[in-house]
């Protein structure tokens, strides 16, 4: 039976990982991810979780240990943030093309400089091209539920790819929320035992990670790309299966009051929760505004997104990360959205805002200003992107 408990989201994610009966956790603590690995180390040390906790000396080693343990057939988890992701990123690219179904929680945080421990999506964007599946949560319950689903997606033999569960640092990781935690039996029913596609076994030696000469590298990358493409419907299947068992519905693109919306906000992560409150306030004044929230960032669900936002006249595209591209193109999320629209012959009026960077709060008032801006501006007068909440 599920029980509803008041618990810090980081601890709830760690509990969820424990309920998934992981075999190996290799992680290095970094703010704001620390409580996740700290609690997992407690669960192992106190005998509540029968797993190997490897306290490595860096994130580079964390992901390297994860590659080894996953290749040996162990269910493997790690977690990081920001600079930690930057340090482990070399191995992240390897884990994905080697098709190792590692699950990693990323408590999203800005990247230095200046040194910032606070939230934005710089690490999520840094991880964008590493060939992982990237799931994004908006609140604590979703971070927990997506952790269960992440293992099931990753370990599905038709996928066998690593999966990131993103949760906004501090805004989610350090907040106490009421969260439904299922019992171990329910999780066992949802998540079958891990059966790897291939495993390192001294009885039947294989080579994982050989050199790829020019006559095979292209094929190896094509194979990886095809698997990532093929994973999208399977992610949808797992969302359906989760709903059947636990009653909570997840969608690749979540929508809010979008049916008759002339202006649609496209958001990702916990921003969506504030946006929904702002949308309620604007709706009371008769502004036809709605939202699409991106649950799956990689593989990028262009078809589902365009189906949701394709009829809107105005789009408010949010990026919670700075982009250094010279100012003549938009931020990373907006670029994906515009590319999806362009390929389908659509060109609504769009405004791209860089918001909530390095822990800056984003208020309901900010959403109202952004909607006002796109509604009143002439198409063609809007710059590729604008900073919100910046002091002149």
């Amino acid at each position, binding site marked *: 039976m599920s029980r509803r408990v008041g618990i810090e989201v980081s601890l709830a994610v760690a509990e969820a990982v424990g309920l998934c009966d992981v075999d190996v956790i290799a992680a290095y603590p970094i703010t704001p991810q620390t409580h996740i690995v700290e609690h997992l180390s407690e669960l192992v040390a106190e005998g509540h979780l029968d797993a190997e906790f490897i306290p490595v000396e860096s994130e580079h080693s964390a992901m390297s240990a994860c590659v080894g343990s996953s290749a040996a057939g162990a269910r493997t988890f790690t977690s990081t943030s920001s600079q930690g992701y930057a340090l482990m990123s070399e191995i992240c690219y390897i884990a994905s093309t080697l098709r190792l179904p590692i699950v990693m929680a990323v408590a999203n945080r800005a990247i230095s400089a200046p040194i910032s421990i606070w939230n934005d999506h710089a690490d999520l964007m840094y991880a964008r091209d590493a060939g992982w599946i990237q799931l994004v949560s908006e609140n604590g319950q979703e971070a927990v539920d997506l952790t269960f689903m992440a293992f099931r997606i990753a370990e599905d033999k038709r996928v066998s790819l690593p999966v990131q569960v993103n949760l906004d640092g501090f805004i989610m990781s350090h907040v106490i929320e009421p969260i439904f935690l299922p019992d171990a039996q329910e999780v066992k029913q949802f998540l079958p035992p891990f059966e790897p596609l291939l495993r390192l076994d001294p009885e039947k030696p294989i080579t994982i990670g050989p050199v*790829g000469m020019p*006559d095979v590298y292209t094929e190896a990358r094509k194979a990886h790309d095809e698997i990532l493409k093929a994973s999208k419907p399977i992610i949808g299947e797992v969302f359906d299966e989760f709903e059947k068992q636990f009653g909570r519905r997840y969608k690749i693109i979540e929508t809010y009051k979008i049916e008759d919306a002339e202006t649609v906000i496209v958001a990702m992560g916990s921003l969506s929760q504030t946006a929904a409150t702002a949308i309620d306030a604007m709706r009371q004044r008769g502004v036809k505004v709605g939202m699409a929230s991106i649950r799956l960032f990689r593989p990028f669900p262009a078809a589902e997104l365009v189906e949701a936002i394709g009829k809107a006249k105005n789009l408010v595209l949010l990026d919670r990360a700075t982009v250094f591209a010279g100012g003549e193109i938009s931020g990373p999320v907006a670029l994906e959205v515009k590319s999806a629209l362009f390929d389908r012959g659509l060109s609504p009026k769009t405004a791209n805002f860089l918001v909530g960077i390095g822990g800056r709060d984003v208020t309901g008032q900010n959403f109202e200003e952004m909607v006002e801006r796109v509604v009143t501006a002439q198409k063609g007068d809007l710059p590729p992107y604008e900073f919100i909440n910046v002091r002149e």
Partner: protein
Amino acid sequence: MAKESGIKSWKELNPGTAITEPGSAAALKTGDWRSMRPETDRDRCIKCGQCYIMCPDMVYTKDAEGYYAQNHYWCKGCGICARECPVGAIMMNEEVD
């Protein structure tokens, strides 16, 4: 051909390009880009086996008469054997085709 070159369709690759057959690299024809070819003058050869010891690519094997025969399937023409031969019995000749 696939065994000699390792060339496959992306659909035939093992997950993560893993190699599941131990020792399969022996089948790869790695001696196909040689520009200089070693040839042994058996009149000068003293059967010392230095070429066999020094060759990094397993080109030399001892034959019934005690000479070291060459298998050019893996030979890249690096010339180590010719350089190490104490009696100058190995010549590096230009590949013509």
